[in-house]
């Protein structure tokens, strides 16, 4: 075991290293852990994600699949070596085009692109797609990455916008530099000195009782000192969850597991020891139980939580008018039953992070979407007051909802707290997929009807959403779905129920859209049926029925800034051209049939009729440094940039003057969670108010009028207007408790009105709207589908940053396409990124984004949310396009080739 390691000679980025290493060790490990070259990322350890791509003698390989012995004596190039190898312009191009969102895939993309450009300096899009086909990105939809690779050196970074002109400017992300340099610090990159490495023992069963054996004897038999922690070691309340009324998940199970992948113990040891620990022999005896895996059967099955009869966690309902009578009187009716699959977030960064003690404060640095919730929940589990837990969000390599929930925080926190030593943990890909939340699989039925003019008169919706073993965000889904299942249409008579139902499947939680994307599939299938039944053009049908300003929603709310009609209108010319093109192409081919389909979305921003405030602090130090405490975690979506843009214009200073203080719970006030498309709107609004408040103070301080222009000049604040210039030295002012010479702190909470027992009320203060059109080609003999083009018209009220907004649209479409065509998580079967498929470069259509700006009366500078909206219409638009092309009406997702072919045959029968 402790034989001395041989020495290997490696040439990395032109520097020779002689390092002692096991020759069979993954090159990625040697780079990251031994040489601390952490720019090379690890997303899967299996060749599936390409995040670890490096060049060996100029050829791209996966460092995770390369025994270090094979790199010995050869030239290894990592992202850190790209500038010296002449690829700085490529990195600039990534920044310029917004090609990095969360940035976790960026090093792999850059390195793979460098190999291409070395051989072919002016690649076509197709060549770039092929060269990058082995690197997965879950954020961008690839379009901007391909743009960046095919236009290196073609455009300089534009000059930063002057004061007052930030909103609407196409500026690159403010936090992009480290992402393209490979220096961004994600959870796995943190390696505090003397840290213990933590591994979890997890259930291989969907449901089981268990008893632990002699863990002390097992630990003693390991090749080095090993610590074991179980539920018995947890000092606080061994239960966590995102919604206080439904908290139900143990950090470490006590004697009973409700899902595969649930942790029952953790093991900690030094890095040198942990590898040799025989986790498979951990002493535990399982008594497997018959699991409930089907959502319908579960409603009459064994109880997964004793206090939840029928395994129903919660049911949400919206009821308006008399749908029964309206259906009876209808001219046309349509009924559908649709089933969707578990969908995995598949961010490229598995959960990872580090914890350590600072005095008696436990510090946890890990990727997250909700630092304050992490703090409070971890404190509860560990029996600490919240102010003795500090959460420092690490750069987050994608979240999409799942990193709203706790994962490793209580585990590494426990080890740090108990041992006083730092603790690190990095989930394996399998562990990440098995143990974290998913999109709810939905089994939905619905009926909708029109009158003789094609006007929708009624709709019913009933859905069982498989919420898996633990509550997570199941209640949010059950409440959101009935509110949104009508789509952005006038539906005078409506009844919708959605239940979150427990099974022993993985917990379903938050995933971009909180159940609304699933509901939209059913609704837009029904509306397609009705358009066809009425012999109406599908777009005309939707335009006829779209909500107009002043109309009431199914909740009886009359929202401001209704932009669906404008979004649909924006599609009209594209629709006409695409339908004509499809008809022409179909006249020539029987096997390859073209189709065009569309779908709409609406989505309320922020919590459903519950408080969700954000607080922004903004201050100027005595030295004249402007600091924005930006507490909205940026998981790649761009909050750091967009919030700053809003604040900059409210304050009247240029974006370049801002320094950001991140969402560290000890430094920055709570901006809530990055979910529900709320950050641009809610935190943006707080930033706008804080910006204006600070401006007002500065104007008072300088005795200036409203229209004065402000500037920072060293430690002076300078105000200029028609009457001249006034200066105040900031260091002359007494600093406040936070050390600022002058500051403002403002809170904003969306005004909503609670829903009554019929779901009537004002659930959201702001909605975003949109419609997308898909052009597809269906292979009638094989059932394969290729999406050629997506045209996406979204009303964001006010576009704060078109570059980032396009990135959201493209990324959302990629996820919607995956949901429609390929993604299906099956516990124990697809716990990796080769059985679980997400779109690659080669699967993405051309994407055209059209931004509609119907100003919102409430949103900051008229802005609305966008992050989740963009995913909602994609899948139904694709399904409607498949139907237009082939007649196939898909009722089970994803639309894998064999399912499409079966549906084509059904349609022909």
């Amino acid at each position, binding site marked *: *075991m402790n*034989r001395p390691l041989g020495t290997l000679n490696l040439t990395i980025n032109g520097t020779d290293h002689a390092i002692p290493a*096991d*020759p*069979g*060790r*993954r090159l990625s*490990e040697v780079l990251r852990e031994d040489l601390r070259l952490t720019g090379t990322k690890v997303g899967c*350890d*299996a*060749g*599936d994600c*390409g995040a670890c*791509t490096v060049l*060996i003698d100029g*050829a*791209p*390989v*996966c460092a*995770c*699949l*390369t*025994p270090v*012995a*094979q790199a010995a004596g050869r030239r290894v190039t990592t992202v850190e070596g790209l500038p010296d190898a002449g690829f700085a312009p490529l990195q600039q191009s990534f920044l310029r085009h917004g090609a990095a969102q969360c940035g976790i895939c960026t090093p792999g993309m850059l390195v*793979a692109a460098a*190999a291409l450009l070395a051989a072919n300096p002016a690649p076509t899009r197709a060549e770039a797609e*092929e*060269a990058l*086909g*082995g*690197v*997965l990105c879950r954020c961008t939809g690839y379009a901007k990455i391909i743009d960046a690779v095919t236009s290196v050196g073609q455009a300089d970074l534009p000059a930063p916008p002057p004061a007052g002109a930030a909103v609407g400017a196409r500026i690159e992300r403010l936090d992009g530099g480290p992402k393209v340099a490979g220096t961004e610090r994600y959870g796995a990159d943190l390696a505090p000195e003397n840290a213990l490495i933590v591994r979890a023992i997890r259930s291989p069963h969907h449901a089981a009782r268990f008893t632990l054996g002699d863990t002390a004897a097992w630990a003693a038999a390991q090749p080095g000192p090993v610590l074991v922690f179980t539920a018995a070691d947890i000092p606080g309340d061994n239960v966590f969850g995102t919604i206080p009324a439904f908290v139900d998940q143990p950090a470490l199970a006590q004697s009973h597991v409700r899902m595969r992948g649930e942790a029952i113990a953790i093991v900690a040891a030094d890095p040198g020891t942990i*590898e040799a620990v025989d986790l498979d022999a951990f002493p535990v005896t399982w008594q497997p139980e018959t699991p409930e895996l089907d959502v319908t059967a579960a409603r009459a099955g064994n109880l997964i939580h004793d206090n939840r009869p029928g395994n129903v966690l919660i049911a949400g309902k919206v009821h308006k008018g008399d749908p029964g009578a309206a259906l009876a009187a209808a001219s046309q009716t349509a009924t559908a039953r649709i089933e969707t699959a578990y969908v995995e977030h598949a961010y490229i960064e598995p959960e990872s992070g580090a914890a350590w003690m600072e005095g008696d404060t436990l510090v946890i640095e890990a990727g997250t979407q909700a630092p304050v919730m992490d703090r409070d929940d971890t404190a509860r589990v560990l029996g600490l007051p919240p102010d003795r837990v500090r959460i420092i969000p690490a750069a987050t390599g994608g979240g999409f909802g799942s990193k709203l929930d706790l994962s490793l925080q209580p585990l590494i926190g426990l080890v740090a707290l108990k041992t006083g030593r730092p603790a690190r943990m990095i989930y*394996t890909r*399998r562990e990440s997929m098995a143990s974290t939340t998913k999109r709810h699989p939905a089994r939905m039925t619905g009926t909708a009807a029109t009158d003789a003019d094609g006007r929708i008169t009624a709709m019913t919706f009933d859905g069982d959403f498989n919420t898996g073993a633990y509550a997570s965000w199941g209640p949010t889904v059950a409440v959101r779905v009935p509110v949104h299942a009508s789509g952005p249409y006038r539906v005078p008579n409506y009844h919708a129920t959605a239940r979150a139902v427990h099974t022993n499947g993985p917990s379903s939680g938050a995933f971009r859209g909180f159940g609304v994307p699933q509901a939209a599939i059913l609704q837009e299938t029904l509306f397609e049926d009705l358009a066809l039944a009425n012999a109406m053009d599908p777009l005309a049908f939707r335009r006829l029925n779209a909500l107009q300003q002043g109309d009431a929603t199914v909740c009886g709310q009359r929202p401001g800034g209704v932009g669906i009609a404008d979004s649909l209108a924006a599609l009209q010319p594209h629709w006409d051209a695409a339908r004509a093109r499809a008809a022409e192409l179909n006249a020539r081919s029987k096997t390859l049939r073209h189709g065009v389909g569309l779908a709409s979305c609406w989505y309320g921003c922020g919590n459903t009729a519950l408080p969700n405030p954000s607080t922004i602090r903004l201050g100027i130090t005595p030295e004249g440094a402007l600091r924005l405490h930006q507490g909205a975690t940026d998981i790649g979506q761009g909050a750091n940039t967009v919030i700053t843009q809003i604040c900059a214009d409210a304050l009247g200073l240029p974006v370049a003057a801002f320094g950001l203080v991140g969402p560290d719970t000890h430094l920055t006030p709570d901006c809530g969670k990055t979910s529900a498309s709320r950050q641009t709107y809610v935190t943006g609004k707080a930033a706008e108010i804080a910006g204006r408040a600070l401006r007002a103070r500065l104007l008072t301080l300088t005795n200036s009028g409203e229209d004065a222009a402000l500037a920072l000049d060293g430690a002076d604040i300078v105000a200029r207007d028609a009457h001249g210039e006034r200066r105040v030295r900031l260091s002359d002012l007494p600093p406040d408790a936070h050390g600022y010479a002058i500051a403002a702190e403002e809170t904003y909470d969306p005004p909503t009105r609670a829903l009554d027992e019929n779901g009537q009320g004002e659930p959201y203060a702001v909605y975003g709207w949109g419609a997308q059109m898909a052009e597809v080609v269906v292979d009638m*003999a*094989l*059932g*394969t589908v290729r999406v050629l083009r997506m045209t996406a018209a979204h009303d964001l009220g006010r576009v704060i940053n078109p570059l980032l907004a396009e990135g959201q649209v493209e990324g959302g479409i990629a996820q919607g396409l995956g949901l429609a*065509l*390929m993604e*299906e998580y*099956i516990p124990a*079967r*697809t716990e*990796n990124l*080769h*059985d679980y*498929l997400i*779109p*690659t*470069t*080669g*699967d993405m259509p051309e994407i055209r984004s059209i931004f509609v700006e119907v100003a919102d009366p409430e949103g900051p500078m008229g802005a609305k949310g966008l992050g989740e909206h963009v995913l909602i219409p994609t899948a139904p638009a694709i399904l409607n396009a498949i139907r237009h092309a082939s007649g196939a009406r898909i009722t089970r997702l994803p639309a*894998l*080739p*064999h399912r499409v*072919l*079966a549906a084509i045959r059904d349609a022909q029968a």
Partner: protein
Amino acid sequence: MTAYHRPTDLDAALRLLADTGATVAAGCTDLFPATDRRALPGPVLDITAIPALRGIVATPEGLRLGATTTWTDVIRADLPPAFDMLKEAAREVGSVQIQTAGTLAGNLCNASPAADGVPCLLALDAGVELASTTGTRRLPLSAFLTGPRQTARRPDELLAAIHIPAAATAGRSRFLKLGARKYLVISIAMVAARIATDAGRVTQAAIAVGACSATARRLPDLERALTGAPATALAAHVTEDRIAPALSPIDDIRADAAYRTHAAAELVRRALTDLSPQEAAA
């Protein structure tokens, strides 16, 4: 630390293999994904430093593809059109990264039912050369692959080379792969087809289907029907009953069995259509 051997000489490698029964490691693109460990579990015999095992050379009987020939080597090699299918397959193996490291021999020894190299090499009548300290033996590829993840290789044997007989280097070829996405995808079904013609007639038809049975299979009924037929409209000979008997597809997460048979027939039809239009010259 694991015992890790990386000899540069074939005889030394064979001796090590006989002595240690080590795991043979080439591109490691199958080996590493099979473990969560930071290092390959040993003992390991890494064969990538043995020059004698790399590369493609002409031999008196045909062509010899050394064991550590990578997919990228195949793509770059100057080979007759009979190998177009192998190049097409190589381009579709995983990604550029996987093609750089992964080897043909690794693909065969790993013996996945969905191995993309297998149908092509079956349609090239490939044989494998198995070397050990006790000598070498040759087996037809179809006899080497005995089941899913099973081969006729003894633990002390190294797959040293793949041999293609001269006769099989004739004709033109095509590979078609069906998966649920474009890159990095495990085949739902794939087809390799090689057709040689003379004077307007088919002289050789070699057609193999993968991912539709425990190991990829040739289609003898269809090949018989094609041999001697006019070299046009080849696809017209494809019927499901000339294909289905050779296959034994299963239902899995990627597709159901009935779909696989149907898709295999359709892919064969398309491959043959692609090989039909040019009137045969060879």
